[in-house]
């Protein structure tokens, strides 16, 4: 395994509540990513980080924020969860070669 863990793996929450997903790596990779996977859409990039405190938006960043205060952790926050954010969220890590290693996913249900 690539040394990447996501937590929680499953979460059910209510509309309007804040949610934070955590991605932790032990590989010291420069890049960290958050994707969401939805049927018919494949994987869509939410945010990514190219270094500590260096982040950038992806194609579906509205309603999400991220933070990376140290190399090993990348947090994804939904400030006020909505039903449209029900999805499976994947964290990935990698280097400039572009090959990514994915976590096992976090399934989020917003009621």
């Amino acid at each position, binding site marked *: 395994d690539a040394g990447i863990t996501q937590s929680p793996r499953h979460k059910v929450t209510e509309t309007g509540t804040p949610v934070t997903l955590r991605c932790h790596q032990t590989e010291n990779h420069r890049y960290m990513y958050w994707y969401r996977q939805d049927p018919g859409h*494949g994987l869509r990039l939410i945010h990514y980080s190219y270094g500590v405190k260096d982040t950038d938006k*992806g194609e579906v960043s509205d309603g999400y924020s991220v933070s990376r205060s140290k190399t090993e952790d990348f947090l994804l926050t939904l400030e006020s969860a909505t039903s449209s954010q029900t999805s499976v969220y*994947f964290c990935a890590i990698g280097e400039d*070669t*572009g090959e*990514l*290693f*994915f976590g*096992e996913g976090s399934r989020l249900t917003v009621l």
Partner: protein
Amino acid sequence: AQSVAQPEDQVNVAEGNPLTVKCTYSVSGNPYLFWYVQYPNRGLQFLLKYITGDNLVKGSYGFEAEFNKSQTSFHLKKPSALVSDSALYFCAVSPNTGRRALTFGSGTRLQVQP
């Protein structure tokens, strides 16, 4: 902006027959191209990549892919399919300069019948 198209939602093939999963891309400049596979309830796993050089790239589990610059395609192939190859396959692209942010296609489900 970069994009990837996988025109087939599902590909069905009989075990032992060759398989092809199609992918076309759009990116500024020269691309880095990738194929990933996803098994049920798992994260994606890297299969192979094209960065430069030989247009035919060989990867894991007997898969290969052919880069065609004029057609902006990167089709995944395997000479003889196995039932265990049944999974969801994703093509991805990133630019070869600047920050590495992969854009994925919508995925193609491969079903190999015994």
